[in-house]
C-alpha cells in the first residue's frame, strides 16, 4: 500500500507550503474567515462589475464615456480634484509644519481637529457647507456682495473637496517631518543656506515621497467623493455635475450597464493614480536612496 501515504504527503506539503511557519494555532480558522469575507465582500462584487461591463463590450464602454454629459462630468471631477489637491498640498504641508515645529496655545486641539473630516459623515459636511455658502448664508452673503457665487458652482465643489480630503496630506507629511533629523538642517545652516533655501533644497525633497503619496490618495478620494459635494454643487448638467452623480442618475434611469461603465472608468482613474504614485515614489526613493 505505498500509494495512499504519498497522496496525503502531497496534500500536506501543499498546505504546509501555504503556511511556512506554523507555531500558533488558528491558521485554518483565521484563513477561512479571511478568505470567506474577502471573497464575498471584495472579490465577488468586483468580478461582477467587470463581468457586467465586459458584456457591453469595448465600443459600448467608449460610447458611454464620450457622451457629452459624462465627458463634461469627467473633466469637471478631474479638474476640481486637481485644484483641491494643489490647495491641500500647500495648506496641508503648512498645517503639518506648524503642528510639528511650533508650540502654541490650542495646538493639541488643532491636531485633533485635523481628523474631523474623516469622522464627520459626508452628508453632514455637505449640508453645512451648502447652508453656509448659499447666497443668503452666513458666509455666502459676503461673497455675494463682491459678486462671487460659491454654492451651486464649480467653486463650491472645489471647496467641499478641499474640506473632506484635508486630513490626507497633513497625516502623510506630519510623521515624516517629525522623524526628519535636524542634522540635515544644521548642515545646511553651517554651509550658509537661509531658511527658505534649506526648506526648498533640504526639507522638501525629504518630504516629497510622503507628500505625493498623500496627494495621490487625496486625489483618488476626491474624484469619488459624493455626499459632501452634491448639496453644494447644484448639480447642473454639463456645468456642476460630478462623476459619481452620473452613476446615480444612470441608475435612476435603469441604465445599469451605463452606470457600471462609468464606475469602471472611475476605478481605472484610481488605479492609474495609485500606479503613478508608486512609480514616482520608486523613482524618488532611488534618487534619494543613492545617498
Amino acid at each position, binding site marked *: 500500500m505505498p500509494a495512499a501515504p504519498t497522496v496525503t504527503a502531497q496534500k500536506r506539503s501543499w498546505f504546509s507550503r501555504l503556511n511556512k511557519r506554523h507555531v500558533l494555532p488558528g491558521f485554518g480558522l483565521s484563513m477561512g474567515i479571511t478568505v470567506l469575507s474577502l471573497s464575498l465582500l471584495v472579490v465577488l462584487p468586483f468580478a461582477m462589475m467587470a463581468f457586467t461591463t465586459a458584456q457591453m463590450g469595448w465600443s459600448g464602454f467608449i460610447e458611454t464615456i464620450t457622451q457629452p454629459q459624462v465627458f463634461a462630468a469627467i473633466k469637471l471631477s478631474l479638474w476640481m480634484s486637481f485644484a483641491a489637491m494643489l490647495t491641500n498640498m500647500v495648506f496641508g504641508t503648512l498645517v503639518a509644519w506648524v503642528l510639528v515645529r511650533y508650540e502654541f496655545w490650542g495646538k493639541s486641539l488643532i491636531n485633533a481637529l*485635523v481628523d*474631523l473630516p474623516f469622522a464627520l459623515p*459626508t452628508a453632514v459636511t455637505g449640508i453645512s457647507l451648502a447652508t453656509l455658502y448659499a447666497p443668503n448664508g452666513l458666509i455666502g452673503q459676503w461673497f455675494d456682495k463682491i459678486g462671487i457665487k460659491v454654492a451651486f458652482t464649480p467653486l463650491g465643489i472645489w471647496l467641499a473637496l478641499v474640506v473632506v480630503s484635508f486630513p490626507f496630506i497633513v497625516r502623510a507629511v506630519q510623521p515624516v517631518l517629525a522623524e526628519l533629523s535636524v542634522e540635515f538642517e*544644521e548642515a545646511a545652516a553651517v554651509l550658509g543656506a537661509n531658511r527658505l533655501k534649506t526648506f526648498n533644497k533640504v526639507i522638501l525633497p525629504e518630504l516629497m515621497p510622503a507628500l505625493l503619496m498623500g496627494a495621490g490618495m487625496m486625489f483618488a478620494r476626491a474624484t469619488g467623493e459624493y455626499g459632501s459635494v452634491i448639496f453644494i454643487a447644484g448639480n447642473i448638467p454639463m456645468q456642476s455635475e460630478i462623476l459619481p452623480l452620473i*452613476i446615480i442618475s444612470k441608475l435612476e434611469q435603469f441604465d445599469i450597464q451605463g452606470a457600471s461603465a462609468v464606475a469602471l472608468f472611475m476605478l481605472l482613474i484610481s488605479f492609474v493614480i495609485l500606479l503613478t504614485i508608486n512609480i514616482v515614489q520608486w523613482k524618488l526613493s532611488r534618487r534619494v536612496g543613492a545617498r
Partner: protein
Amino acid sequence: MQISNSYDYQSNAATKDAPWVKRLFVGVAVLFMVAMLVIPLMAVFYEAFKGGWQLYLAALVEPEALQAIKLTLITAAIVLPINMIMGLAIAWLVTRYQFRGKQLVTTLLDLPFSVSPVVAGLMFVLLFGVNSFVGGWLESMGIQVIFAVPGIVLATLFVTFPFIARELIPLMQSQGDSEEQAALTLGANGWQTFWHVTIPNIKWALLYGLILTNARAMGEFGAVSVVSGHIRGETNTMPLLVEIAYNEYNFTAAFALSSILAALALLTLLVQQVMTKLQTRKFAKATRLQAAPKLPVSANGKLDDDNSANLAANTKALNESA
C-alpha cells in the same frame, strides 16, 4: 495615531524660524482650519438649535426620524460584531503566520478605501439586483437584498471592514507573538491564549477600531444611498433622511439629525485623543522597560547613580512628550 516627538525646534539655531514667520504660519494654519472645519461644524449645531429646544426635540421624535435612527442603530449592531470577527481574523492571519498570498490579502483589504462609495453601492446593486443571477434567485426565495435592510448592511460592511484590521495589524506586528508562544508552552490551549494573552494586549486598539467602524457605519452616505432605494419609513438611515429633509427645506430636521452624527464624530475624535495619550504612556513604559536590562545593577540590587540619573532624564523627556 503617531507619537509626536518632543524636540524643541525653536531653541536650535539651525531649525529656528524668525518670529514673524512663526506667527504668520500659525495664523494662516489656524485661520484655514477654523474657516474650513470649525465653522462648518459649529454651523451644524447653530442651525439645529436655531428654532429652540422644542423644535429640535420635535424634529427628532417624528416617526420618520425615529425609524431612521432605529435602522441606523440596527445596521451598526449587525455590522460591528461581524467586522470585529473579520478584523480579528485578518489581523491574526496577517501578523502571526507567513504564508503565500499575504500581499494579496493586505491589498484586497485596502481596496474599499480607494473605491468611491457610489461605486461600492453600485457593485452590490449589480450583484444582488433583481436582474442579476444571484438577486433573481434570492428574489424567488422571497429574500430581497437591494432596496432593503440586507443591502444596507452589506454596503456598510464593505465600506467599514478595513478599519479594525488596519488598527490591529500595526500593533500586533510590533508586539510579536512571543507572549502567545509562551502561553502555549505553559500549556494554554488556543482559545485560552487568545482570550487571556492576545485580547488584553490589543483591547484598546480594538475598541478604537470599533468606534471608528461605528462612526463610519452610522454616517455612511454614498454607498447606502445607492442600495437603499429611499423608501420612506422603511429604508432610510440617518444620513439619508438628512438628505431628504434638506431637499424638502426642512432644515431643522436635517440639522437636528446631523447634530447627533456630528456629536458622534466629536466623540470619536475625543476617544482618538485619549487613545494616543494611552499609547504614548505605554510607549514610555516600554522604553523604560527596554532601558532597564542595559542598566548594570550592582550586587545589592541598587541602581548606579549614573544610570538612575539617566533614567530620570529619560522619564522626564517622555513625560514632557506625553
